[in-house]
């Protein structure tokens, strides 16, 4: 067995379900891999660990990989489990904010740093009325948003809306950025170029096994994976897991677009370029960036595991 | 108990009365035990006694610094303020110089005046004059750390004198001074006492000094501290260089010495 470690971007949760599934049901072992999942978390530095070679794969995103190329870091996305980034913006239901564009009417938008420097730039370029004054930092505590009806807040499709509804008793309006034009690849498997060059078969096996894991997780028996998730993250509840899986399916986060016919994880040059061009347009990435170094399609779109989808 | 001469004829009113004052420190040391002492207005009382007998403690209690464990301090003829001290001016020369290290000599002497709201410039001439009395006119701008031991003590004396107090408490003020300076300051204090009629309580180890300066000498006994002998000292001679060679003076010295020897002897054996 080859030892492989995979650093995620958050605590164990259903959004990582496929990977846990592959660990739990022996798919990785079947592919000759012994996989350790390194949980992320608030402020966790798993990306730095990837760069330093302390983990083999990391749950990256398209923008991050392109930033890597810009900084001369040979990070390469080899698969994108999520076709749509689950990033959302939420608003209070009774404030007359009915479309994404209406968010410009909010007095305040609570966003993390990343959001502010990326999709908020994009929003300012592509929609009318967004301005810097709206930004306030989001520290992963939704209370200020709940307290201020004239505010909006970033969130993760599968998390914040659920918590807010549970706690505050009302369901926020949810706008998926991906459905409104901002759609980077997300929940990628990112590796260093060195790994790809030296152990392409390990990469291929990890990608394939993970994809299988995801099909099994979404469409098969995922109890063992959920048990593993709850073991890694004792706070996780069944309700939350069920909600997440439902939302993943409802919004086609994992299976939509290219993934429908080429399999989970699929990335295409055309779509990659589309997003890159958007970023160039809003000034986040330089036009002369050799963005093709940030990903490779050699490991995906091979219809692996599609037969598992029932 | 020997008295060198009969008590002074003119009646004096008591200024401060210590009544059966005892002082036990929290460490357990009984510094004073049932000490009673009445000091009359206008007296110059010297307090003598073996080292550690409680002289400083007694002085501090009179000044209202540190409460007595039992007994009381009375100021029969004075209106007393919230702190239990008489209105009007008390000055204290502590046994240690007790200067503020962050102030110059001038600033240190200015302190009691500053506390009364007198500005530096208004007090300037007074302060400089007092500094001249103690021979420190050239050191007004020096900091305490730049002074010798005797000079520090002289700053402390200047600080006590600058307010022209009505009651002057001095705890071995001249011990660190050379004899010439000491005699000069002896005479200065004596002149002040004569001219202004202030009351002085003066702790010293020098029998000669006490006999030269005071009109009453109190000798204390140690552990626990209490009054051993209380001797008025009356002489018709004026206190000057001649007095030091007079028979009155010699006799006074002898009496005090004997009382002191008694106080210590009765203690040690």
């Amino acid at each position, binding site marked *: 067995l080859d030892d492989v470690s995979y650093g995620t971007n958050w*605590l*164990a949760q259903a959004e990582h379900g496929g990977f846990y599934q592959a660990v739990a049901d022996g798919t990785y072992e079947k592919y000759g891999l012994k996989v350790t999942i390194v*949980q*992320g*978390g*608030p*402020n*966790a*530095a798993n990306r*730095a*660990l990837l760069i*330093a070679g*302390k983990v083999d794969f990391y749950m990256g995103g398209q923008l991050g990989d392109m930033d890597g190329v810009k900084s001369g870091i040979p990070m390469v996305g080899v698969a994108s489990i999520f076709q749509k980034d689950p990033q959302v913006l939420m608003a209070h239901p009774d404030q007359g904010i009915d479309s994404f564009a209406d968010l410009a009417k909010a007095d305040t938008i609570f966003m993390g740093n990343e959001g502010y420097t990326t999709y908020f730039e994009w929003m300012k370029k592509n929609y009318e009325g967004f301005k810097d004054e709206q930004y306030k930092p989001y*520290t*992963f*505590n*939704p*209370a200020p948003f*709940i*307290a201020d009806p004239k505010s909006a807040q970033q969130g993760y499709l599968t*998390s914040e809306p659920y*918590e*807010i509804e*549970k*706690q*505050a008793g009302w369901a926020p309006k949810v706008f998926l950025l991906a459905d409104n034009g901002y759609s980077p690849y997300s929940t990628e498997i990112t590796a260093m170029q060195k790994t790809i060059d030296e152990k392409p078969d390990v990469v291929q096996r990890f990608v394939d096994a993970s994809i299988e894991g995801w099909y099994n997780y979404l469409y098969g028996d995922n109890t063992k994976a959920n048990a593993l998730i709850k073991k*890694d*993250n*004792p*706070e996780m509840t069944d309700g939350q897991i069920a909600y997440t899986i439902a939302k993943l399916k409802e919004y086609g986060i994992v299976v939509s677009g290219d993934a429908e016919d080429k399999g989970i994880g699929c990335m295409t040059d055309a779509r990659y370029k589309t997003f890159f061009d958007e970023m160039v347009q809003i000034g986040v990435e330089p036009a002369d960036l050799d963005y093709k170094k940030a990903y490779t399609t050699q490991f995906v779109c091979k219809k692996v595991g599609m037969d598992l989808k029932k | 108990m020997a008295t060198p001469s009969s008590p002074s004829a003119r009646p004096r009113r008591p200024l401060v009365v210590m009544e059966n*004052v005892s002082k036990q*420190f*929290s460490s357990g040391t009984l510094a004073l035990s049932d000490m009673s002492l009445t000091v009359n207005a206008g007296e110059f009382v010297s307090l003598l006694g073996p080292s550690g007998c409680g002289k*400083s*403690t007694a002085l*501090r209690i009179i000044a*209202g*610094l*540190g*409460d*007595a*464990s*039992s*007994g*009381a*301090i*009375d*100021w*029969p*003829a*004075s*209106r*007393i303020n919230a702190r*239990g001290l008489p209105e009007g001016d008390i000055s204290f020369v502590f046994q240690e110089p007790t200067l503020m290290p962050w102030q110059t000599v001038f600033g240190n002497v200015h302190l009691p005046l500053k506390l009364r709201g007198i500005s530096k410039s208004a007090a300037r001439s007074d302060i400089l004059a007092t500094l001249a009395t103690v021979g420190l006119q050239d050191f007004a701008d020096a900091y305490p750390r730049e002074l010798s031991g005797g000079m520090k003590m002289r700053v402390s004396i200047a600080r006590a004198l600058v307010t022209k107090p009505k009651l002057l408490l001095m705890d071995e003020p001249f011990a660190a001074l050379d004899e010439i300076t000491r005699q000069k300051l002896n005479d200065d204090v004596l002149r002040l006492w004569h001219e202004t009629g202030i009351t002085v309580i003066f702790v010293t180890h020098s029998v000669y000094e006490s006999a030269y300066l005071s009109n009453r000498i109190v000798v204390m006994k140690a552990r626990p501290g209490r009054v051993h002998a209380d001797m008025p000292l009356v002489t018709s001679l004026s206190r000057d260089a001649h007095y030091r060679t007079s028979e009155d003076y010699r006799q006074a010295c002898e009496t005090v010495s004997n009382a002191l020897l008694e106080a210590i002897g009765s203690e040690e054996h």
Partner: protein
Amino acid sequence: MADTSRRPAPQMPHASNRGQKLLPIVIPMGVVAALILIWHVGVIISGVPPYILPSPLAVAGSLYKDWGTLAPALWVTTKITMASLALALIGGVAIAIFLVQSRWIEMAFAPITVILQVTPVVAIAPLILIYAPSTQVALLICAFLVAFFPILSNMVQGLKSVDHNLLNLFDLYGASRWQTLLYLKLPASLPYFMTGLRIGGGLALIAAVVAEFAAGSAGAGSGLAFRLLESQYRLNIPRLFAALFLLSCLGVVIFAITSFISWLALHRWHESSLKREN
């Protein structure tokens, strides 16, 4: 207009000593209890929703209900705090001793300690994580960086504030550097050190929290900081406040202990802990 008055001696100064001994515990508890009451009443009157500011009752409930997760977290945080305090003490005192060896050394190295101090831990935590052999070590390094400076600064000031006369005395008796340090400089700087200790104790706790934020591991072995962030993320505000409450308690206990140590070390001789008797 003479007005006869006397200042009587206070009666029985040593009476009711037993009761007095307990006051340093009873009074702060009372004040804290009063604060909690105000908080409670405030929440009820203002009607602020529990996900913004929960009532003390809700917090107590969460404390009781989640004790199973909070207690181990408290224990983890306590351990990190103690370890980082110990590190900060050793490091702070050692560096301080090194710095005061000569004016040159101080000039040369003081800026480096400042740089260590002001560099935001969150920013260099990833670097530390990469090079530290284990997360635990990384955590301790982070915590140390946060907590050592006040101890260092106080210690430097203390070591430099030694009475020059006593230094002369030690020189005269041919004391070695080491003896002067051990018998003179260290005891003389105790009042400063103790202040540093009191600051350092609180800061070590903060350091443990910050370190966990910055370099913390998740899951079973995680401390209060992580529980706190997690509760916040889950909008479990009562539990967030329960975690905050535990942190505060830990802080107060550390403060009480350090204050007591300080009292023990100083009450026999230093002005700051002595009753004025004369």
